């Protein structure tokens, strides 16, 4: 970890300083802090404090530099794609960190990266669902989160900035089923409960759907809350064109409720204020049957990602207890899929 309070010196920092000087048309740039933020199995986030002399960006800035971790999962986008999505979301009034500069030149950090605004607040799901002081009014937070999600879903194709980097699916649910099966087929073991969930979703795939921008990781743990209020939605690496219902299923699925397993609204409160907030902007409300369908799909998708994480540990040469334990989550995801299909509690 590179943590120095004063001027930081390392080849990476020197390279970033040089790149920032060009990008911001500055006379000189000094990086006062460059420190890896915790978390991020797939992406790395670095706290970046820069002092810029001259040019349109002169002054002190608190930013985040976002780049790929050593290994990524197949379902995630490139940093350039994520940057493009963030710009479109920002223009649509979505609450998210402001994207600033993209670097596709791999000679700087050997990986693509971008720089964005740093926002205050707490994101950790286990804290937000356990410490009432952080979320004094859960219903109000959920209402805002629902409304904010609907603003993302107001973005439709065609959109020239995104059409080059994102594909429009012909049938989102069926394509997800095919995609997840493809990933399962890469593995050594087989998972009959996941297969049954996929078959169930295949046979009941919605015939009618809209295609909008969807975030695909909109859930507790991926948004910042400061003094009880939403500060910004993070982690846009999976965003793309899809069925907006997928995001509502993901947000409300039991696997993303942390310490609030019985609170369907992301572990924060009941699902109603979330759906109310969504409806206040979108003008539509998801039915219970649709929500259950996409909650099943959410558990299937998380199972596929968890199995990919486990593979990194088992076969990818990246031995890690955290990745190994993520693989063990698959059992409870199978259990939830079966319970939801059987009409059990959500």
């Amino acid at each position, binding site marked *: 970890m590179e943590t120095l309070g004063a001027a930081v010196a390392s080849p990476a920092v020197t390279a970033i300083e040089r790149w920032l000087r060009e990008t911001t048309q500055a006379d000189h740039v000094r990086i006062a802090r460059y420190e890896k933020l915790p978390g991020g199995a797939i992406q790395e986030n670095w706290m970046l404090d820069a002092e810029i002399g001259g040019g349109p960006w002169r002054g002190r800035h608190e930013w985040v530099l976002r780049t790929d971790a050593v290994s990524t999962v197949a379902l995630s986008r490139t940093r350039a794609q994520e940057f493009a999505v963030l710009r479109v979301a920002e223009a649509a009034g979505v609450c998210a960190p402001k994207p600033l500069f993209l670097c596709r030149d791999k000679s700087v950090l050997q990986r693509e990266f971008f720089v964005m605004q740093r926002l205050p607040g707490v994101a950790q799901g286990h804290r937000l669902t356990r410490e009432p002081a952080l979320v004094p009014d859960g219903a109000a937070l959920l209402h805002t989160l629902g409304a904010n999600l609907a603003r993302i879903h107001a973005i439709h194709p065609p959109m020239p900035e995104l059409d080059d980097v994102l594909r429009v699916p012909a049938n989102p649910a069926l394509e997800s089923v095919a995609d997840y099966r493809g990933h399962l087929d890469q593995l050594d073991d087989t998972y*009959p409960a996941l*297969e049954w969930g*996929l078959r169930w979703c295949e046979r009941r795939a919605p015939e009618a759907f809209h295609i909008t921008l969807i975030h695909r990781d909109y859930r507790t743990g991926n948004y910042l809350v400061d003094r009880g209020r939403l500060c910004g939605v993070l982690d846009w690496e999976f965003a793309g064109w899809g069925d907006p219902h997928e995001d509502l299923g993901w947000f409300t699925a039991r696997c993303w409720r942390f310490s609030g397993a019985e609170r369907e609204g992301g572990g924060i409160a009941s699902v109603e204020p979330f759906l109310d907030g969504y409806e206040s902007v979108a003008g539509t409300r998801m039915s219970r049957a649709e929500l259950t369908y996409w909650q099943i799909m959410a558990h299937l998708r998380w199972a596929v990602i968890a199995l990919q994480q486990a593979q990194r540990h088992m076969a990818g040469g990246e031995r890690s*207890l955290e990745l190994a334990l993520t693989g063990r989550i698959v059992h409870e995801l199978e259990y939830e899929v079966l319970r939801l299909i059987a009409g059990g509690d959500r």
Partner: protein
Amino acid sequence: MRDISDAADLMTTAREALLRELLPALPVEHRYAALMIANGMAIAAREHRLGTDAARSEAARLRNLLADSGRSPATHDLSALRKAAAAAIRAGYFDEPARAAALMTDLAHTAEAWVAISNPKALRPAARAASTPEA
């Protein structure tokens, strides 16, 4: 009752030592890693106690489900049976309502048995009472 510790007892005892003696002495930034280690040890201990039964019962259920399908592999190997079941599911063999119901019941039992090992707290009360109690 055995005279000396088996694998599960060693794992459980080592985990208690970690949580009682080491954890309080660890700097806060290592707390998460210690709790992950404790979790991994708890899963390993439960799997030692319950894993063989879970695997054997799952194999028996899958063999039974596939018995009339013409797809049952000539083996008791669990991974071969899982593969055969997965292929039958994809091919639509279990779409027929009576078969679907039998499959659901059996898959649910299997899932409960593995959740009782990987994360018993995730089991709903009815299933939790039925699973082997464990520290």
